[in-house]
């Protein structure tokens, strides 16, 4: 009896203990970070997320910017590799079958691009519900720039690109990718036209980006890539060529290409004064863009060093160059067989002196005369390659201008293994 009594007391106490167990566990509030709900329900949270897109795009060796500039530079022979111990870079400079889905630079570019697209979609969706339409307009336009760049970058390097973000997404042709980027820009332009971006927004994001001009410039770029020449011309003509639009850096957040390549002299450097162009197309010896983009070190190899937009730790990175817009016009005219206007636009770039360019990029050469359509296109390719050196755009140009495959080390990149292993819709890898 006594035993049983104690038993029942024991069990009662036990039950009480168990009940109280759950009461003791608190839900501690995380003081270190904001929740998704918080971020996407307030203008300040959305602003932070928008700046976050720029950070993913530009910060450090894992950024979209570093990976696209270096990967593109290595496969298009703009850059040489200084240390074969950098395995992803080694694969790219070797080219062909050496470039695998394991390549961490390509995986990085793929991941940051998709991250930007996914977060930009959330920002654009949430901003539409804000009461301050002018502030919302800034959020939508600014994040659309990075979304368009991310989609555009994927479409420049991969044959097929994801149709959206989410689980087991399907793939679309890269040209449709560019069109998707244009749709993003068109939406942003419509929002901006309806409600101008408020000053309150622009002071809340880093200085440097000229939102409206950038939207038009990117629309021109992707229209050209999708053979929509008339549309490319319209957009290019809207871009104010006196304005600069840059991704800025400061002492804290330094230029990623300077940080990993220029400063270390251990990753990549420009190939030489040919800037990777074949004989016949290489820059003229008096082309002042070569000393803009490279400096010379006479004591320690290699002789040619990165300058241009990665010469110092705080070098700002242009989202587009005035020269690109002018060359888009030239190419759009040339492709539509308006050779007169094509040559006029081309010569604006050929004769532009550094002083005439907002960034100081200027060939300062004599104008070209009497060219056939193929010759004009060759010259446009040549001047794009020089004017837009290390911009990441060259691989797309090489294919568009039908350059011999031997001039490049890879035409399209293989899909990252992390995608293939986890998405059954991943297309087969291209052979080269």
């Amino acid at each position, binding site marked *: 009896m006594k035993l049983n009594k104690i038993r029942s007391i024991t069990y009662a*106490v036990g039950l009480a203990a168990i009940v109280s167990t759950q009461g003791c566990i608190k839900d501690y509030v995380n003081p270190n970070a904001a929740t998704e709900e918080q971020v996407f329900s307030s203008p300040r949270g959305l602003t932070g997320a928008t700046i976050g897109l720029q950070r993913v795009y530009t910060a450090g060796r894992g950024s979209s910017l570093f990976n696209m500039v270096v990967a593109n530079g290595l496969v298009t022979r703009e850059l040489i590799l200084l240390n074969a111990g950098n395995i992803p870079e080694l694969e790219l400079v070797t080219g062909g079958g050496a470039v695998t889905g394991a390549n961490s630079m390509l995986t990085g570019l793929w991941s940051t691009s998709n991250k930007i697209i996914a977060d930009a979609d959330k920002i654009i969706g949430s901003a539409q519900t804000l009461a301050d339409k002018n502030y919302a307009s800034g959020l939508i336009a600014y994040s659309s720039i990075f979304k368009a760049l991310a989609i555009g970058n994927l479409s420049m390097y991969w044959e097929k690109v994801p149709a959206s973000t989410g689980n087991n997404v399907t793939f679309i042709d890269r040209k449709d990718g560019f069109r998707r980027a244009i749709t993003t820009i068109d939406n942003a332009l419509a929002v901006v036209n309806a409600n101008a971006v408020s000053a309150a927004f622009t002071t809340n994001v880093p200085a440097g980006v000229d939102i409206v001009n950038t939207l038009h410039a990117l629309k021109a770029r992707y229209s050209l890539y999708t053979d929509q020449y008339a549309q490319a011309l319209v957009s290019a003509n809207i871009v104010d060529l006196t304005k600069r639009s840059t991704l800025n850096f400061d002492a804290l957040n330094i230029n990623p290409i300077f940080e990993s390549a220029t400063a270390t002299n251990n990753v990549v450097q420009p190939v030489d004064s040919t800037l990777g162009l074949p004989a016949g197309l290489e820059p003229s010896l008096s082309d002042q863009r070569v000393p803009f983009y490279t400096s010379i070190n006479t004591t320690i190899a290699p002789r040619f060093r990165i300058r241009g937009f990665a010469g110092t730790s705080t070098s700002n990175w242009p989202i587009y160059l005035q020269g690109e817009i002018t060359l888009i016009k030239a190419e759009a005219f040339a492709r539509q067989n308006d050779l007169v206007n094509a040559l006029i636009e081309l010569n604006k770039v050929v004769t532009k002196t550094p002083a005439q360019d907002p960034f100081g990029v200027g060939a300062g050469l004599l104008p070209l005369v009497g060219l056939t359509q193929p010759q004009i296109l060759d010259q446009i390719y040549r001047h794009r390659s020089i004017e837009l050196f290390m911009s990441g755009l060259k691989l797309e140009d090489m294919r568009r201008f039908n350059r011999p495959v031997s001039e490049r080390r890879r035409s399209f990149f293989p899909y990252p293994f992390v995608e293939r292993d986890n998405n059954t819709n991943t297309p087969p890898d291209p052979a080269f």
Partner: protein
Amino acid sequence: MKKMKRTPFVGRRKLLLALAFQLFAVVLFAQVRISGRITSKGTGVPATVLVRNTTFGTGADENGNYVLSAPLKPGSYTLVFSAVGFKSFDANVTIGSASTYTVNADLAADALNLDEVVVTGTSQGTTRRQLGSFIGTVRAEDLTQGAPNNVLQALQGKTPGAQITQNSGDPAGGMSVRLRGINTISSSSEPLYIIDGVIISNATNRVTNTSGNYDGNNFVGNIGQNRAVDINPNDIERIEVLPGAAAAAIYGSRANAGVIQIFTKRGSSGAPVVTFSTSVQVNQLRKKLLVNQAPTKFGGSPDVQTQDILTPALTNTTPVTRYDYQDYIFQSGIGTDNNVSITGGRDKTKYYASASYFGNEGIVKNTDFKRFGFRLNLDQELSSKLKFNIGLNYVNSFGNEKPDGQSFFSPTNAVTIIGNFHNITERDALGNLKAVGERGRVNPVSIIEDFKQSQQTSRIISNLGLKYSLMKNLSIDYTLGFDNYAQNGTTFIPPFTYNVSDGFFGGGPTLDPTRNGYASTATNNFFQVNSDINATYTANITSDLGSTTQLGYSYQYERNRYMLLQGRGLAPFVETVNGASTIIPGVDDRGEQSIAGAFLQQNFKFRNQLFITGAVRLDGSSVFGKNQRSQVYTKASASYVISGGDFWKSSSVAGWWDLAKVRVAYGESGNLTGIGAYERFNTYTSSSYIGRTGLNSRTTLANADVKPERQQELEFGADLSFFRNRLGLTANVYVKKVKDLLLNRVIAPTTGFNSKLDNFGELENRGFELLLTAVPVTNKDFTWDVTAIFNRNRNKALRIGQALTLFSTNAGAPVAILEGQPIGVFYGTFFATDGSGNQIKNTSGIPTIERGVQNGPLAFTPQRDQNGLPLATGTVLRRIIGDPNPDYTATLTNEFTYKKLGLRFQLDAVQGVDVFNADFRTRQGVGNGVVAEQEHRGQLPRGYISGIYAIEEWRIDDGSFVKLREIALTYRVGKWKVFNDLNFSLSGRNLISWDNYKGYDPEVNAAGQSTILRGIDFGSVPIPRTFRLGLVAKF
């Protein structure tokens, strides 16, 4: 009970309650005094004495004398004498009218320690005989003989089921413990540590090596000191290691990876005994690597072209002087370990107090570690029914460090990453060091002489225990434990006077003053409390059937604060972050979490022969989803002592077969701290960006309703002993499954995330352990003891829903988790081979990388061109190229005693294990290694190293070894002059390693205490060999 009601004391202030009990005891029963001597073969044994079925007990002094005073009613009692290493001994005593009794005991040695009391989280303890599951015990005298620097080194090779690895040879180098394999993936797979009832932190906090620049912000593992380094082995009485199911239920909530319980020394009655020990030790680099001695390099002067090998187009040569930088960075380190302790007690008060100082220099110049410790353990009997104890341990440790592995400017990596043709000590006219080549690398001399990196920890571990005997068979005990430490680390990299890369905190070729140099300070403050209350009821239902019921409740709370300040571009002379012209974003991270749980355990024993235990536990943790806070864990075990039956005693085998016991146990356990405090939330972290604040989504997708992992383990075992306990064998077989595995699984980047943290799949560990103890010879003068341990574990991931998860690591190690394969295998590219396994070489004689069609992660079809070479257009193939999980580990210990002389040596073997030797390849790539030498000398074709550089299999190295882990020669003077006991010892640690490893030591992990990244050699400090001369004196 009725009598109590009548007392005038009830209802008075509660503080008087304790006194009341005592007075009552005196009123009701007279105190009786039982004394005597406990011996074994004539030598006194400091055993414990308990009056069975009561809470009265005491301990004997060093000579075996004991005095037990207890208020016992007249009647028959059984005294139970027990001591580690001896069979327990029962003696009957009948208390009558006399007030003093004498009971002596003679204890017999017990190879399997079957009657040793183990405290598996029970308040009463239980004997090994009763256990249904395996628990390893290590005694004090086995811990400190082999010149260990910390408690985990001391445990190496001492207990079955444990693989204990020293990850770094730094004087405070991290240690990893794996009990029966890897038991989780997403969090630490280190066991739960409990000291005298206090759950202690064994975290690895990075307060130095803090900036992401150290490792390119890659996945680097868990580098640095782990906090078990604070525990002084000399304070330890014994350690219980619970590798498996035994840990379940009692410690269910956090016992996935097993439990290590440490019990510190306690006081005993008798005259105070002062123990003084001191030792001096020397640490040395055990093995020096051969370096390139070729008289020339390819290309031009080292100053403008330091890297030559990897550019096969360079074929001209330049004469160079070759150096061996190992002579510069390594030294012989001197250390000393000093301890003084006093134990004693009278009547109701017992104490143990100790003070210690341990100081040790590393084998890398200008590194050291110092630890000051103080401990007080006090036991006080407040009344015959209420006892209380308090333990206080203060530790202060300080270490001078150098940057750890996983970066290119750790001391060892600084010499690995440069060609050995730079005169690194050469200075210019101004006394400034010179650049080592043109690539902006750090001169090793800067690291050794100019870098200042140190960390210190101030820690208090304290425990308070109360034990109250409510009535004869029911007792309640309460433990309150605090673990509180502050760990601070500082780093100072002075501005370089030569070109060092921005990534290594240099100012580049222009010595940019806004970038050159680095300073940081980081602090981690940790506080943990555990509050445990247990009630135990014992009853004899019949004379043959006994029952023990236990009910317990535990609450645990943990708070962490981490802060980091850092900056670069330093002012001259100033070593603090204040001198920085560019402040790098700091870290301010705060966390809180709590766990609460209750358990009920029922144990039956039948005739001291059959033991059955069942338990159920309910737990919840704040880190998991709200709907996951009622986790139920169950446990059941049974053991049967076959040799305890009457039929056995009368059978013919009884003459030589002393013990046969079989046991089976099933247990469930969880991992309630398996993810970080807030990891179940999808959050956006803030960071300063270009003068504004950015909010960034994490790369990991979280699930708010994530639940803890659940481990289910089934263990079978047997304990056998023969020939009067001179031969003992313990065998355990187990299958462990971790369900709802918490896995940060790689997902398609098109989801917007790189990985997802959720419950996926399972993890399985299967294995067995054998423990053999033997005393082949024992006589008056000479004894020979042998202990052999064999552990085998097979680990694999199951149903993780993803064929391949590949981690990108800083060392370039392609660490993977593959369906059906062990965790953390190396998965990568490999050499093309022909049918007979020979490497296929191209026309230049350079091995080739395998190519073909990759049909799946583990299936592929190699393809060949018309010349029999791998098809150039084929995909580069990948397969498992190495496994850092050993096939087996084993230990053989021999101990010889001849009169006063003792010799003990321990061999540890780890076999069938691979190491990813990143350093080996780097040495060849930069031209200081021996393969590079062959290429320089023309013994290998030019372009050989460049040709195979990308083949990951080239970096897989044989990590199997047999080590002379410990050796100790002791001379026991015994009683001499003023000394009650005097001992001398000469010991050594890690003196010899038999291996085929191409680096310093295969027992290494640059990723520190990481769970997944194992066996990576990337710039870590090799484990030194240590010689120690010691003295122990008792007064």
